[in-house]
C-alpha cells in the first residue's frame, strides 16, 4: 500500500468509516512508515484539539434582542418596499390618465370641428358635440385615475393586516 492510500485511510479512520480489514492494512503500513505514522497522529491530535475547544454560551442579551427583533418583524408589514412599488404604479396611472385627457380631448374637438365644416349642421349643434366629447375624454382620464387610486388604497389596507398563517 502506498502512502497516499494510507493517508486516505487515516481520514476514513477519523470518520469511523474503516472496515476491520482496512484498519488492519492501515496498521501494518503505519508500523513500517514513519511519515504516515506521524501524519496519523497529527491528524488525530488536531481533531481532538478541535473537539475539546470550550463551547461558549450565548450572551444573555442575545435572546432578548432576538425576540425584540422578531416581535418587531411580526408587527411590521411583510414587504414595505412593495408599498413604494405600488405608489409608483399609482403615479404612473394618474399621469397616463392626465395625458390621455389632455391629448385626446383637444384632438377629438379638432376632428369634430373638421367634420362640422362638411356637415350642414348648425353652429350651436356642433359646438354642443365638441363640448360633450371634450368632457367625455376628461371623464375617461379622471376615471382611470380614480380606479388606480382605489386599487392602490385597497392593497395598502390589505398589507396593513398581519399576514395570514400558512
Amino acid at each position, binding site marked *: 500500500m502506498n502512502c497516499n492510500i494510507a493517508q486516505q485511510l487515516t481520514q476514513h479512520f477519523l470518520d469511523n468509516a474503516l472496515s476491520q480489514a482496512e484498519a488492519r492494512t*492501515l*496498521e501494518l503500513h503505519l508500523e513500517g512508515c*514513519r511519515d504516515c505514522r506521524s501524519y496519523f497522529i497529527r491528524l488525530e491530535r*488536531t481533531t481532538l484539539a*478541535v473537539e475539546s*475547544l470550550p463551547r461558549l454560551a450565548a450572551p444573555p442579551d442575545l435572546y432578548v434582542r432576538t425576540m425584540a*427583533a422578531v416581535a418587531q418583524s411580526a408587527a411590521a408589514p411583510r414587504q414595505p418596499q412593495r408599498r413604494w412599488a405600488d405608489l409608483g404604479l399609482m403615479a404612473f396611472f394618474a399621469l397616463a390618465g392626465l395625458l390621455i385627457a389632455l391629448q385626446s380631448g383637444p384632438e377629438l374637438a379638432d376632428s369634430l370641428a373638421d367634420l362640422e365644416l362638411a356637415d350642414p349642421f348648425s353652429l350651436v349643434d356642433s359646438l354642443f358635440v365638441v363640448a360633450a366629447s371634450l368632457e367625455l375624454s376628461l371623464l375617461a382620464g379622471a376615471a382611470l385615475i380614480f380606479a388606480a387610486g382605489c386599487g392602490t388604497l385597497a392593497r395598502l389596507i390589505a398589507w396593513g393586516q398581519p399576514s395570514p398563517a400558512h
Partner: protein
Amino acid sequence: MAELESILIEEAKQDSRAFGELVLRYQDRLFNFLYRMTGNREDAQDLAQEVFLRVYKALHRFRPDAPFRPWLYKIAMNLAINHAKGRRPTALLEEDVPSHGPLASPEGTAEQRETQQAIRQAILELPEVYRAVILLRHVDELSYEEMAQVLEVPLGTAKVRLHRARSLLQEKLREAGIKGGDHELQHRATAHPTLPG
C-alpha cells in the same frame, strides 16, 4: 427530540413567542459556531440575531418533514461567509472567557491553553468553507448527511471537503510548531489505543 422540534416549529409559525423556545434551544450552539467562524463575540452575536430573524421570516415556507438543523446551519454558515468577505483574515484578539453553565470548560494548564490558542488561530486562518466544515463536524457534531445538506453538495463531496479541511488544519498547527515532539509521536503510535483490528 426531532418530534418535539417539529411541534415547536409548527407552533412558532403561528406564534412568535413559541419561536422563543426554538431560540433558547439553539442560541448557545449557534453563537458558539458563529464565534468560531468570526473570532469575535460582537460579530457572532449580531450574526446569530440575524440568523434567527431570517429563520423566523422564512418559517412559513419550512416543510414540517424537512430537517431543521441543517437549514439553520446553512443560513448561519452563508451569513458568516458573506460577513468575512472583503475582510482581512481575522486577528485573534480576545481570550475564550470560560462561560457559565454546562458548556463552560474547566480551566486548563498553561500548555493546554497554548494549544487551544493555536488551534483557534489556525481555524480562523482556514478558508471559510473549510473552517465551516471542521466546525460543523467536530464542534457541532453534525452527521455527514447533515453536513452535505448544509453545504448543498453530495455526501462524497462533503467528506472530501472535511478531509481537506483536516489536512490543512493539521498543516497549520505543524507550521505553528504545536506539540510536535517526535519522541512523543512515536510513543503514541506504537501504543495507539483507539485503532481497531
